């Protein structure tokens, strides 16, 4: 359980836009152990997808650039790999499920072929064998194999996402990155797709990064959680501890904005303010303009990582002993 599969160090990704340089991901550190599922949680624009694309080395360039950092995967720095080498990793050792199943499949190719081509590419199978495997994969995700010759528009959203899962798992990857795989689906379908992913993950023994903004999904699926805010990770922990003892004021705020069934709460306490403009990030701690506990120093100094418990790290100056935690 303890062997590290993925280790991201000091990752920095920028986008050149008309409004200026956007720091999409900055100073990001993240580790994932073999067999684990990590939930990457944050608001829209926090840099979750960019982080995933950086791992895949699919950050659209231009306008995006991975400026610095290291991404260690199975003992190799992916950022040092040539494009051709990276192609043998993509879809094979690391694969990805995308957010919108309605647009993520090629409309003019059959779903069977879209699974086959990955298999053929990475496993050096004949087209007959690949076709067989594609059909098996379809069956595995709950689609009748007879539908391999159908086109994406002939499937519903939930079915298409199953196809997406089949494509991603077809080469038995050691890491699966799922980017909000259920966000675009109906609530009832969401549960089915999540169940499927959970089942297959344990069947295949795949490690997974699940990107989401839904803490409910995290509680159900993930072993560990990383909370992202404005391009960086602010808190990492195992799931249970994060839910019982959130430490970072932002994480606490996130929980404060979910209604709880157990406690009688008269009103929710949402986080005040909005996400900062990514072209003009605040100095110091990115969260300080919205933080109820912010002190002067928070705007002057970037917080460092503080381990508060075994496997529970927080980027906040309260835990560096520089700021006093206020009780509300």
């Amino acid at each position: 359980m303890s062997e590290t599969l993925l280790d991201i160090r000091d990752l920095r990704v920028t986008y050149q836009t008309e409004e200026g340089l956007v720091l999409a991901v900055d100073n990001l550190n993240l580790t994932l152990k073999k067999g684990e599922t990590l939930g990457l949680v944050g608001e829209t624009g926090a840099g979750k997808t960019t982080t995933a694309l950086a791992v895949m080395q699919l950050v659209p360039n231009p306008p995006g650039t991975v400026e610095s950092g290291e991404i260690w995967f199975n003992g190799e720095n992916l950022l040092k790999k040539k494009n051709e080498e990276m192609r043998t990793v993509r879809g094979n050792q690391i694969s990805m499920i995308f957010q919108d199943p309605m647009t993520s499949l090629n409309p003019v190719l059959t779903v069977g072929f879209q699974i086959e081509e990955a298999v053929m590419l990475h496993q050096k199978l004949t087209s007959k064998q690949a076709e067989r495997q594609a059909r098996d994969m379809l069956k595995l995700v709950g689609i009748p194999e007879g539908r391999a010759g159908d086109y994406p528009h002939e499937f519903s959203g939930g079915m298409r996402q199953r196809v997406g899962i089949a494509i991603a798992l077809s080469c038995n990857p050691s890491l699966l990155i799922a980017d909000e795989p259920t966000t675009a689906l109906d609530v009832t379908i969401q549960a089915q797709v999540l169940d499927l992913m959970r089942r297959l993950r344990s069947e295949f023994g795949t490690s997974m990064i699940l990107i989401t903004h839904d803490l409910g999904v995290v509680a159900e699926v993930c072993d560990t959680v990383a909370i992202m805010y404005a391009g960086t990770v602010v808190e990492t922990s195992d799931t249970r501890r994060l839910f019982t003892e959130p430490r970072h004021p932002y994480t606490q705020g996130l929980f404060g904005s979910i209604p709880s069934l157990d406690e009688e709460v008269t009103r929710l306490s949402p986080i005040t303010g909005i996400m900062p403009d990514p072209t003009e990030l605040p100095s110091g701690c990115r969260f300080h303009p919205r933080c109820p506990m912010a002190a002067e120093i928070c705007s002057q100094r970037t917080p460092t990582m503080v381990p508060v418990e075994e496997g529970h790290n927080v980027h906040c100056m309260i835990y560096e002993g520089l700021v006093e935690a206020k009780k509300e």
Partner: protein
Amino acid sequence: MHKYILRRLLLLIPVMFGVSFVVFTIMFFTPGDPAKILLGERAPEAEVQALRTQMGLDDPYLVQFGRFIFNALRGDLGRSLTTRRPAAQELWARFPATLQLAAAGVLVAVLMGIPIGIISATKQYSLFDGFSMVLALIGVSMPNFWQGIMMVLLFSIVLRWFPSSGYGTFRHLIMPALTIGTSSAATITRMTRSSMLEVVRQDYIRTARAKGLSERVVINRHALKNALIPIVTVIGLQFGYLLGGAVLTETIFSWPGVGRLMVDAIRQRDYTVVQGGVLLLALTFSIVNLLVDILYAYIDPRIKAQYK
């Protein structure tokens, strides 16, 4: 699929009926008396009147239109007012030359436009891209009749590479085909580029890359087929443009096609031939568009599915 083709074929009938109506109406209200044109200005009034009656020119408008449609359906477009031979025969004799020219033009346009457009899109903002985009813009801005004349000047008069006019050999075809096809080539280049740029931004291209496919496969297998869908439509429309352009190009190169026949006919006020020519070219254009629509359904399974 058959249902789809059949439906499109049936749609052709009202459209061609409408085209006939429009063309007939324009020519009907044209000042000038066909009988007089046939017999010459100095013919005695009685003779002219007799011919008018014989030709049914004194009948009401709708009766004449009905007769025109009825005859056209049998392949009879009336008699040329100058040669007195059946207009359909004259047009039909010239038709292969026009078709040849238009097809050569489309070929030039497609063979130049699509590859250049793809390379431009995959190397956006590169030197090649900038250069070909400026060239394409010049291509769409150049009047093709001027381009034809300039090509005659350069390649026939100065360099003596190609004959300045005439018909029959491949050497005769090159300059007219380039003249008529350049603007379409430019349009298709621009269209291919923008269509490719639009397609490579789509999520499914990212999915394809995430599978580890090489860039070549991503472009050729995943992007191109999607990008082709709007391009095919443009090629069909360009064919119509080329049929219109044939009138000008054929004039410059003395190409013995329908277009030149029509220009001569206009000069001689031979309205039967003009009318028949417009009809023939419009019918050709409609049939080409029909073929394009069918091709379209083969490329895009979403359309095929509607008519399964």
